[in-house]
């Protein structure tokens, strides 16, 4: 049953991801991107990590409305031109490179799922991976401050 669920989720995730990059209507693209992320959250759930799934769900649920707001406020028309040939080629190349790079991850594991509790996830995040966590936080803070500075200079 979980195998059926996996294939269903993966298939729908692929369909919506392809729709997200091919559709010209940006509001629809954002919507199908959101659905893709939620389906990926479902995949995390199948992999035995409800905490990661919930966090994926939460982050995207918060981010997608704001992204849609940006699409509405910042773009002149709500549809974009279709991709050019070299863009498609570059995209395919990048996908192939990613596949090669993450080859180890694709074929990884022995098919056994070990559930991860939120406590384990939190402890790992704040002890084993504390440095990376903090670096990411500082990076986000920098991005925020930079955005404010840019916006003020533009306005003033």
């Amino acid at each position, binding site marked *: 049953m979980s195998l059926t669920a996996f294939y269903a989720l993966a298939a729908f995730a692929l369909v919506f991801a392809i729709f997200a990059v091919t559709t010209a209507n940006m509001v629809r693209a954002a919507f199908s991107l959101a659905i893709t992320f939620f389906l990926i959250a479902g995949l995390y759930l199948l992999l035995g990590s409800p905490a990661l799934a*919930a966090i994926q*769900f*939460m982050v995207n*649920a*918060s981010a*997608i*409305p*704001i992204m849609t707001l940006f699409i509405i406020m910042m773009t002149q028309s709500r549809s974009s031109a279709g991709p050019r040939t070299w863009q498609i080629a570059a995209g395919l190349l990048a996908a192939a490179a990613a596949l090669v790079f993450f080859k180890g991850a694709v074929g990884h594991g022995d098919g056994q799922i070990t559930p991860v*509790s939120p406590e384990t996830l939190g402890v790992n995040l704040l002890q084993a991976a504390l440095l990376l966590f903090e670096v990411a936080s500082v990076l986000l803070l920098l991005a925020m401050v930079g955005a404010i500075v840019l916006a003020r200079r533009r306005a003033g």
Partner: protein
Amino acid sequence: MRPIPIPEDRHFRPRLIGYDPQKSRPWLERTVYAAYVFVFWLIVIATYAGVPALFGALGWDGGWGFVLMRVLQVVLLFLLSAVIALLLILVLRKYLGKVQERFGPMHYGPAGGIQTVFDALKLLAKEDFVPAAADALTFRLAPAVTFVASFAMFAVIPFASGWVLADTNVGLIYLIAVSTLSAYGVLLGGVSSGNKWALIGALRAGAQMVSYEIPLALVFLTVAVWSGTLRLGGIVDAQLGLWNFLPLALPFVLYVIASLAELKHIPFDFPEAESELIAGYNVEYSGMSFAFFFLAEFVELFLLPALIVVFFFGGWHGPLFGIEPGSLAAGALESLYFTLKTAVWVWIFLWIRATLPRYRDDQLMEFAWKAMIPLALFGLVLAAYMRLIWR
């Protein structure tokens, strides 16, 4: 000369069902509300005790049988949300009528009790119109997104001990996610309508709900820190001795304010401000699409007070009169306590709605960012400190 006929009955008069104009009969009204609540209670019992018992007796509680059971439970919960919407719309109209020295609906059913059923039938019969300027696909999708985002909260609401669809240990995170998502449906609906008022309403909804999501999430975190768990059942169990609204008074007040904003309720009803934006994001909607926006709004009007009860007022806790905990009778009694506590909070929300005028939009955002979020952070730190000392 042609004699002019005198019409026998020159007036159009509505058909009357059980109606006595001389009396307002408050007891009849209360009986109607009690009947709705009773139906609600029966559906809750059927969902959380009846269906699992049935599937257990049939031996279908593994594999696809389990999936079927969950699907049946979700269908029953949809029925439950319909009952909630029918009751709450009726209560809202009657209550606002009383406050404004009117009677509210009086004509259909005892004391107007089935007026909302007729309203729903009317909406079902109406044309579901898509304006020419609208983006048809997104326009059709938006009410569904809004409703599903509200309805999905049912998954983690514990009606009694063990009476919950998914008693997951990440329930709070899930709640934060789902409650943000309901802003998204509103945003999509307003943007895809191709209407200025709808667009402004949607932008207001997006700004307001995303802003008030932060204090709401911080209050959730405060409750999690205080109770030491992200599981809603665990949070209720942690309040066995003392209900949370006493130690967490500040987060409790912030939660009430933030959930008013999350509900798009007066005094924070900017997305659908009737006097400025006609009806805001749902201007262009008609028929069942409009009904789904409405359903979502009133399901949320039940769910956010229900979360107040879960977080601050001991959930299902109440005197059990010696009934063995865990039995069907105990579950039924607990879910009744939960329902009644929630009903009181829904009433308080309606009371606030009847009293306060609308805020101003910039004041609203200022209040969120300059008052609510700092206070919520302060409450979080305070709760963490108190927990360190007391427990």
